[in-house]
């Protein structure tokens, strides 16, 4: 499940500088709504509800667009992490980094070329990590849990549990390259 939270992306601007999201001199307007994500469990760990008594065919749910894809060709993910779990979060990123660097999967190898990870040096209540994809492979998912599941299937349950404990929320930004 990826429960959406009503947190405007411009909270990012506020977090980045402890700034008011909208300057007082600026006319008030609706802020752009972000896509706020939460890391989903690996496929093997997702609970499946089954009702043996139910015979009616259940129509398949409409396919949801993968919010971790960046069809515009570039994008960013922002991970807000509990400070006391930051070291653990970075340890998981190190495993992801090593796995991406070593992968022989052509699709994941293409992603690895431009998959960059940063830690914000600004001090806030939560640690902020930034994934930057430029260029992004348009049809590929940058969901870190999916990547861990593909690359490190034997470790993914443990790594997912550590990510889940560390992450407060995830935000995405699709980007269009200008220059």
């Amino acid at each position: 499940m990826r429960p959406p939270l009503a947190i405007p992306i411009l909270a990012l601007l506020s977090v980045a500088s402890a700034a008011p999201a909208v300057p007082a001199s600026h006319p008030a307007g609706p802020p752009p709504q972000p896509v706020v994500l939460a890391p989903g469990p690996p496929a093997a760990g997702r609970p499946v509800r089954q009702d043996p008594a139910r015979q009616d065919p259940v129509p398949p749910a409409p396919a949801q667009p993968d919010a971790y894809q960046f069809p515009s060709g570039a994008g960013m993910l922002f991970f807000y992490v509990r400070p006391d779990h930051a070291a653990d979060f970075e340890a998981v990123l190190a495993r992801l980094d090593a796995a991406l660097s070593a992968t022989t999967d052509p699709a994941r190898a293409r992603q690895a070329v431009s998959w960059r990870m940063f830690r914000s040096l600004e001090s806030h209540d939560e640690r902020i990590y930034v994934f930057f994809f430029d260029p992004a492979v348009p049809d590929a998912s940058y969901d870190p849990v999916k990547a861990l599941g593909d690359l490190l299937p034997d470790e993914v349950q443990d790594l997912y549990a550590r990510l889940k404990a560390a992450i407060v929320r995830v935000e995405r930004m699709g980007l269009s390259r200008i220059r």
Partner: protein
Amino acid sequence: MKLSSSLSALRRQAVLAVGLAALVCAASGVKAQDAAAGQDPAPAQQQDPLKFSHNGEVMILWAIKPERTADFESVWTTIKGALAQNADANLRALGQSIKISKVDLPAGGPGVLYVFLLSPASTQYSYNPVTLLFETLKAPDADPAATTPAPKPAGTFTYDEAQEVFKKFDGSYNQINPWPLKGLGM
């Protein structure tokens, strides 16, 4: 260069430098509170908020007025073009360090968002467009003794050229947030 032009340019730079600093500082509630409490006395001289001492990457988030996005993009296209053509290899590297993207969200709040990833961020040069136009990429003054003026070096701006570009930048932004980053692996 005419003296009046020089003074005008200096005033413009000073005003804008203070404006940028004020924008960034005013945007920082923590800093504002500290200053108000007397814990962080204001420096004697305003620092350029777009000149970085941090070794690594910096992300700058620009909130641009929706009706001025074409101007803003034009300014940076011009500046990056000049940096790419400049004879100084350090300035060409400066231009290559700037990746500019536009956030795919409808305009709202502070405006249309642009993301600059500076990788690596220069510790030598400011990313303040006014400093770039009027100082870093300033064309050499003409030699008054020369009978024929020397051609302007590629990738530089005369005062008048810089002023034309500056007009497009002036007042185009609502908010600027520089954000230093540390790379992890990859």
